[in-house]
């Protein structure tokens, strides 16, 4: 019995919903609101089963009024509630970004710490299934650039559950980005990484800590969500050719775990940063800059970055495949870098 329990496997979406359910059971002030979070269980399964467990007063479907319901979550959080508001796709942030960054992110500061906003904004990110320019973005840095919100983006089901629990318990606004491909949904390409061991009991994984997913000594690859998955794939291929890559899963954009990155580069002396967001003014730039500031002399080769080449995400498969970095592109970039 004990062994099977240890081996309990969950998809990303079930890990996420379980974390929410456990916190809702513990704390009556936690509630969920958003479009299609009720009967539908969240378009990407993030609230699967919650309506049945907790009823419509705690799992609230909303109109298509993101400004109003995210703003309402802010108002409720200011009163001490712990709302979880879902922005269905991160791509829609533009209709409600004012509430997110001018209010959610700033009220705690502007009030001199007198108002706390213990809320979570969950949102689905990512492309790879040809949903085109308005439904395929990650926009990691559009959030991470703006101060006052923690911004996390876990990869494994284990981290999804643990970081969701941490996010709900955090007294700060947390933007919790979950990657569609890592939810393990039945109607998407099923990738191995979207299923993993998840303990049944509640646990936390700290926000703000990167994770070394694979140790290596020749090159550091920093990735996030699907880019971490691809980096691991690439690392396996590289290993066969005698190149030993260290793969870091960023997990958290804000706070950014500079130490883990720098420590790794000091060991490997080479850095490739991979992002599913737009290349310019983004995460690859930030990580590069941190290293250029703090570990410049450790670098053997110039830093390389792989990301979406500053174009909107095209619909058609050949073009989408071309712009979103994948394992092959990572593999090639590392090879080119090392042999430079």
């Amino acid at each position, binding site marked *: 019995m004990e062994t099977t329990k240890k081996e309990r496997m969950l998809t990303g979406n079930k890990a996420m919903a379980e974390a929410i359910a456990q916190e809702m059971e513990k704390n009556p002030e936690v509630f969920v609101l958003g*479009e*299609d979070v*009720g*009967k*539908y269980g969240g*378009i990407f399964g993030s609230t699967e089963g919650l309506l049945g467990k907790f009823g419509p007063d705690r799992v609230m*479907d*909303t*109109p*298509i*009024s993101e*400004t109003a319901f995210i703003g309402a979550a802010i108002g409720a959080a200011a009163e001490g509630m712990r709302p979880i508001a879902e922005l269905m796709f991160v*791509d*829609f942030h*533009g*209709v409600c970004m004012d509430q997110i960054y001018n209010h959610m992110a700033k009220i705690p500061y502007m009030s001199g710490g007198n108002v706390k906003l213990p809320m979570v904004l969950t949102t689905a990110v990512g492309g*790879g*299934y*040809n*949903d*085109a*320019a*308005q*439904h395929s973005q990650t926009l990691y840095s559009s959030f991470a650039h703006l101060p006052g919100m923690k911004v996390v983006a876990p990869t494994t089901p284990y981290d999804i559950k643990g970081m969701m629990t941490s996010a709900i318990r955090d007294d700060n606004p947390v933007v919790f980005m979950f990657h569609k491909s890592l939810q393990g949904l*039945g*109607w*998407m*390409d*099923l990738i191995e990484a979207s299923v993993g061991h998840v303990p049944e009991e509640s646990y936390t994984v700290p926000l703000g800590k990167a994770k070394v997913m694979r140790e290596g000594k020749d090159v550091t690859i920093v990735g996030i969500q699907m880019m971490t998955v691809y980096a691991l794939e690439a690392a396996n291929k590289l290993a066969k050719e005698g190149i030993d890559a260290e793969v870091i899963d960023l997990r958290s954009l804000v706070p950014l775990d500079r130490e883990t990155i720098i420590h790794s580069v000091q060991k490997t002396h080479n850095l490739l940063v991979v992002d599913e967001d737009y290349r310019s003014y983004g995460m690859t730039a930030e990580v590069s800059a941190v290293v250029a500031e703090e570990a410049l002399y450790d670098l053997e080769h110039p830093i390389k970055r792989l990301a979406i*080449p*500053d*174009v*909107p995400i*095209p*619909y*058609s*498969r*050949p*073009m*989408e*495949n*071309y*712009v979103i970095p994948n394992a092959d592109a990572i593999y090639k970039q590392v090879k080119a870098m090392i042999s430079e």
Partner: protein
Amino acid sequence: MEIPKEKLIWMYETMVKSRYFEEQMEQAYMEGKAPAFNIGAGPVPGEMHLSNGQEPAAVGICAHLTDDDTVTSPHRPHHHAIAKGVDLKKMTAEIFGKVTGLGKGKGGHMHLFDPSVKFSCGGIVGAGIPHAVGAVLTAKKRGTDDVAVAFIGEGAANSGAFHESLNLAALWNLPLIVVVEDNKYGISVTKESSTAVESNDLRAPAYGIAGEKVKDNDPMAMYEASKRAVERTRAGEGPAIIEIETYRYLGHFQGDPELYRPEGEADSLREKDPIIRLKNYMLEQNLYTEEELTEREETVKNEVDQAFEFARNSADPAPEDALQDVFAE
């Protein structure tokens, strides 16, 4: 109101064309997605929002529009595009992601742009309404009498864009008509769970404009209400809201498990199918014979088949094409 025969048959043909297009698309979409449904697989990947059952909204008002009038449409755009006269081959090719498509395969099903008939659509709920405002602001500046129709779902009427755009259009007295297709759901959320009023035409007084309700997905009633609204607005008498009660036969998108939908609802809607109703009307009125109608059906279906053939036979874009068209030279 007497509806001219040529308008009736145009509506009929266009509804048949639209419905048949969606049926072909439904099949094409499922190619490569069996046995396990995978949204990203097959010749037509990505989300797919079909309009089967919602044709009356599109044809009832487009019957009054010219190529110079503007239509903006949301994520469920095919029936509007077809009624507005968008190039069917290029549209189909776009949905297949081909280089011959309206957007060279960059846009896809939710992003169809055909400037030659002033049609556009987009995937963000409510966001097309202001674009329609801009089109008729232009008409006013240029002194033409072109009008614009912004199609939205009933769910979109609760977005800020709806309110801001209608206020602006009313304030500037622009010839804009917002057609709200009330298909009862915004994905899984019912109208009663999203909308504080029973019908969105009741929101017209908030802008001092005209509002009208069309019941029971009736193409002829839609034609009539639209005629009034288009004539009024073209004559400079200001914007209008028309809400039409319409039917969504399929899921929100293909692959929607529809767990939120009462069993049998879609079937009961199909019993009142507007295409059949219009057909029966024309037969009863002796406007056309069965044979004549069948012949016309064949013609438009043939057109759709050719569009699919064109799309399938067209070339994929080259991967590096992705880097083009971000900026005009």
